[in-house]
């Protein structure tokens, strides 16, 4: 075997790049770190208001049913009444999701995005080595994840949680983040396009998430009934959890066993992925990916000669991915709800509680599908903005394609597709649960009602696009996060007053259609329509605004 000597010239300029990145991205980094601190401390504080007994009941309540176990993290018997474990039991998947999304986004930004916008050309020709960009990006990300870990630690500390366990808890999420940073860095070597990188990392994460959910659903819940009282004896995930880095985080048990060896798993994954990324750098040109850009057709097909056909073709990949992705997720959840039955079902006291919870669960899932819609709508509106800001809209509008036609066809496509996705996911859930036609009808009604709340947000995004185009991305993200955070899922978890919860359109739709108030639903749709109308007229009246 021939050993290759390390060529130190390859990393020349790393520190300069590092400093440059820290300078240009400092606000973004600061906001992320601060958000983790605030989130961690608020969530811990609010949940700390529960009594030990209440926590225990909530744990029992949400582990009895396999479908519900998909969204919570394992917990020990002793931990069930402790705030430190309880917080991670409930919010682990939210923290994981945020950490991973942050890493995918920032790693993509620092690597492939940089190359695609050709800023990397400048750097490649200004004396920096070929590995410098990747190395500096990874160093920055490791630092950022460490900062996030410390922020989470801080959030726990100010709530008086045990310091050592809290530190390990924080680090376990930082480690998860670092693995996804390295994965994204690899993807950035493979694909020559930002969206390709996001797709590779995003799909991998979806797989990881799914495996982890299955590990939860197939896990074991033990309980003993003594004198009509249930003694909860812990919820453990199945060994599938070890196939998913999200599962690793959850298997550490920072406040109980402290399985510190699991950090070795993270380290191994990080080293493998990082080496792969550096090896791939050698296999490609600056600006290109390892996966070659295929040559395309010289002539256009008949469909993409027309604006609507072209729009469909350009968004085809995203739309199909989204449609089948949500349908698949819905199916998995549905199957878990249907097949595996309800634990403790036979028990007289708890059986009733669990059956009730199990009945409500599909409707809660449908509201989750509806909360996913604004993410699609936001992405679609941002694609429109990008087409205007840095894309081909100027050229398109110089033809007989009018602004009105471009906009209305995009908006109609967006709205129709959002509802299509929502209904398709709902149907998929129903079929997987082997629900009766009557039940499916109820599910669809619930979807139509929840869809009203999502529609309001779509309308707002269009208003942003029309009135404050440059801020569309930030504002729409803020609106989504707020309306989910104070909405019908997290609002009660965070113990928010009704007045605050009312700001979220999702709070105005009860989970089950029979409890929903028709007037409020009609108002939601009316509000959504008005917002769309304002957005459309505003856009038609305003100037074309490219980014400069």
């Amino acid at each position: 075997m021939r050993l290759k000597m390390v060529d130190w010239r390859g990393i020349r300029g790393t520190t300069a790049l590092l400093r440059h990145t820290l300078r240009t991205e400092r606000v973004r980094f600061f906001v992320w770190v601060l958000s983790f601190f605030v989130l961690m401390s608020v969530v811990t504080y609010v949940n700390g208001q529960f009594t030990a007994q209440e926590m225990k009941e909530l744990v029992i309540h949400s582990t009895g049913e396999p479908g519900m176990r998909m969204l919570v993290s394992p917990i020990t018997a002793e931990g069930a009444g402790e705030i430190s474990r309880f917080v991670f039991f409930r919010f682990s998947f939210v923290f994981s999701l945020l950490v991973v999304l942050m890493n995918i986004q920032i790693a993509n930004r620092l690597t492939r995005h940089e190359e695609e916008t050709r800023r990397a050309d400048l750097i490649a020709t200004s004396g920096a080595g070929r590995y410098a960009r990747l190395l500096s990006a990874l160093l920055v990300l490791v630092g950022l994840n460490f900062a996030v870990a410390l922020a989470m630690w801080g959030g726990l500390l100010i709530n008086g949680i045990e310091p050592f366990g809290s530190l390990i808890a924080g680090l376990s999420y930082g480690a998860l983040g670092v693995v996804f940073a390295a994965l994204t860095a690899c993807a950035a070597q493979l694909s020559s396009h930002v969206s390709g990188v996001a797709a590779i990392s995003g799909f991998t994460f979806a797989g990881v998430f799914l495996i982890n959910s299955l590990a939860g659903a197939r896990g074991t819940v033990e309980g003993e009934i003594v004198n009509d009282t249930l003694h909860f004896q812990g919820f453990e995930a199945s060994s599938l959890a070890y196939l998913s880095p999200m599962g690793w985080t959850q298997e550490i048990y920072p406040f109980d066993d402290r399985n510190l060896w699991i950090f070795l798993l993270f380290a191994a994954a990080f080293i493998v992925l990082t080496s792969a990324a550096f090896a791939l750098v050698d296999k490609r040109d600056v600006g290109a990916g390892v996966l070659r850009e295929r040559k395309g057709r010289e002539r256009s097909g008949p469909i993409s000669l027309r604006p609507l056909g072209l729009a469909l073709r350009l968004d085809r990949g995203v739309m199909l991915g989204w449609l089948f992705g949500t349908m698949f997720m819905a199916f998995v959840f549905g199957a878990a709800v249907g097949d595996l039955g309800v634990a403790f079902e036979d028990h007289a006291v708890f059986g009733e509680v669990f059956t009730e919870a199990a009945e409500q669960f599909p409707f809660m899932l449908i509201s989750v599908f509806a909360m996913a819609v604004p993410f699609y709508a936001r992405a679609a509106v941002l694609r429109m903005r990008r087409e205007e800001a840095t894309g081909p809209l100027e050229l398109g509008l110089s033809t007989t394609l009018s602004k009105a036609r471009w906009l209305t066809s995009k908006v109609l496509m967006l709205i129709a597709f959002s509802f299509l996705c929502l209904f398709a996911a709902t149907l998929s859930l129903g079929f997987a649960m082997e629900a009766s036609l009557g039940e499916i009808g109820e599910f669809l009604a619930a979807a139509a009602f929840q869809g009203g709340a999502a529609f309001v947000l779509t309308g707002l995004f269009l208003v942003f696009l029309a009135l404050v185009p440059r801020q569309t991305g930030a504002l729409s993200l803020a609106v989504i996060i707020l309306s989910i955070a104070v909405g019908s899922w997290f609002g009660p978890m965070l113990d928010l007053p009704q007045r605050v919860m009312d700001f979220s359109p999702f709070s105005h739709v009860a989970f089950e259609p029979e409890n929903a108030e028709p007037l409020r639903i009609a108002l939601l749709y009316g509000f959504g329509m008005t917002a769309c109308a304002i957005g459309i007229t505003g856009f038609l009246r305003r100037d074309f605004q490219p980014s400069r």
Partner: protein
Amino acid sequence: MEPIIHAQELQKFYGKTHALKGLYLAVKPGEVFGLIGPNGAGKTTTVRILLGLLKASGGTAEIFGMDAWQDAATIHKRLAYVPDDVRLWGNLTGGEVIDFLLNLRGGIDEKRRSHYIDCFDFDPAKRCRAYSKGNRQKVALIAALASKAELLVLDEPTGGLDPLMARRFQETIQEIKNEGRTVLLSSHRLADVERLCDRVAIISQGTIVESGDLKTMRHMKRNVIRVRTRDPLDGLQKLNGVHDVIHTDDEVSFQADNEELEAIYSFLAARGILSLISSPPTLEDLFMRHYETRQESTGAAEDG
């Protein structure tokens, strides 16, 4: 003859920036009209208003006698545009984009399409995100030239082209002119403008400061004079109508306003003329003057 493009008293504000300050423009059918001016003068703004992409803050902009903002879609049936900074659909190939644009501009004429693809030596099978700046510009140019549009609006179309392609561009504009089509060409390449344009307008700080037939513009305004005299030419600089005096070893060159020529010649004659060459100014000579006034005034603004 009714002008094809007619802008009067055109005003444009971007927030507080006053980008166009009462601009007047009239382009006649069948002519190639050049629009030149320093960076930030307002060329792209003017062109975008004419295309109905921006709404004028004041004044009127008409193309084919229709309002540029209101009737944009109708106007665009008869017009083709090459933007300043060509940005395309990254996933499509150049060939597909050309087909798409041609189809929206009244149909694909196969002969013209392949003629211009060959002419610009263009590979239509690559994806747009893989094209260089010049190649992206070629996509837009081919889609404009090969269309049946009566009016071509070209905003710095040669910015990314190499010298050979820039020459091809000049030839194709000549062809377009022979077909009787009208062209509005904004450009920084004065050689292009000088060779191709029947008339030009020089725009500076949002107004037209000079416009007209190139030939008359040159002769009416100034001459460039190179002279050798027996006695030194002290005090030349101070004469009315004398600009840009440059002393070289044995020669002095300067620009002279035509209305002051008589006084200037007698000043020179008194110092014993050995040789004198007087020639009309190049576009560059005319243009540079406006460049310099801009710099003086911005400098003053910064001082104040």
